């Protein structure tokens, strides 16, 4: 079993090193003010992964633009904005996809119902805490792509992490013998 596993990792090694190289190249080109090449390498990195049925790490995938695969580096390419007034109906209509706005509303309702039902025993302090939580959950940051004007938005909520970034998701660590000298 372990031998099989190791063999499987070894066959994918070439592809993962290629994806790694392409991602680094796309970042390099983005810093060097060549957005077209950067987007091309980013897209190729995604395509190589797709062909070989391999996933990019979610943290890396998030740094690429969803539409044109330009790596979004705040301070170089883009600026990190805070989305204004998520509660306003006007901005909700402006949100890129209608589905996201709908789910936000649903969440809002559910959380309002719960404190109301428990309201009998609760003090005012707890209520205010809940409100703070709500406000932080609705706060979202976004990066706007300079090439295609696509937006990548992130919820500013540290409680809900991606599953792959939690320590429980790790099953096994495979390490390869390192080269002694890099050059």
């Amino acid at each position: 079993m372990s031998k099989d596993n190791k063999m499987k990792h070894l066959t994918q090694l070439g592809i993962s090193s290629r994806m790694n190289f392409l991602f680094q190249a796309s970042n390099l080109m983005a810093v060097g003010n060549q957005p077209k090449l950067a987007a091309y390498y980013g897209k190729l990195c995604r395509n190589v992964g797709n062909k070989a049925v391999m996933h990019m790490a979610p943290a890396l995938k998030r740094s690429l633009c969803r539409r044109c695969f330009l790596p979004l580096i705040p301070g170089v390419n883009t600026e990190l904005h805070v989305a204004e007034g998520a509660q306003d109906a006007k901005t909700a209509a402006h949100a890129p996809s209608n589905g996201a706005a709908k789910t936000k509303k649903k969440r809002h309702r559910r959380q309002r119902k719960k404190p109301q039902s428990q309201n009998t025993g609760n003090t005012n302090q707890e209520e205010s805490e809940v409100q703070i939580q709500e406000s932080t959950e609705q706060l979202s940051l976004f990066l706007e792509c300079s090439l295609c004007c696509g937006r990548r938005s992130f919820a500013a909520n540290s409680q809900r992490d991606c599953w792959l970034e939690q320590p429980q998701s790790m099953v096994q660590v495979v390490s390869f013998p390192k080269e002694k000298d890099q050059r």
Partner: protein
Amino acid sequence: MEHATSELREFISDLVIPHQRCNVNINPDHITMLEGTKIKKQHSRKRRAHKSSTLSRREYAALGLNTLPTKQMKYEEALPLHHLWKGYVREHLQLREGDEVPKVHDGRYDEFSRKLVKLDLHGAKLKVLQSKCSTLESLAGICVMDTKNVLKLLGKDHRVRTIPKSECVFGLKVGNMEFTIFGQHLNIRPAERSVKKIKNFVKPFM
């Protein structure tokens, strides 16, 4: 701002007769950019709701992402890419300092050549050794783009040149090793090349 107008300048100066091109002097204050066009059709709200988050191929081409500007990239800007590529090759082929190409009777030979075919060429220094078209011969440069039928090389004279793969034989140097690549066998999309199964025997064409 300068970066945005440099493409226009190149386009305008290309329209002028070659021996008068050096006299072209464009004042950047005189350039007026008109952004966007008139909306032809008022989209209904329903349609806007279904707008997908990904770009279609037509939109992708309209952004100009399939074409590269020919004269705007400097050779020096591509050198860090070449350095990155060197590191990648060493990792991919698992090379050490002073390694030689394995001989045909060597046990490592099969695996090595299989890896070599799947190598990524972006950032490699390539040279055209032989070609059906004589003007392409002895062109050299850093490969910046790799498509199904064409390689784009950035030469030392800061020009991006498009070279068809199928007609050429390329030379590639890694450390003290030299490889000769028959371009005919590179005629696959770069993303598909890494998963393509290679037959045992391929004939060189020239």
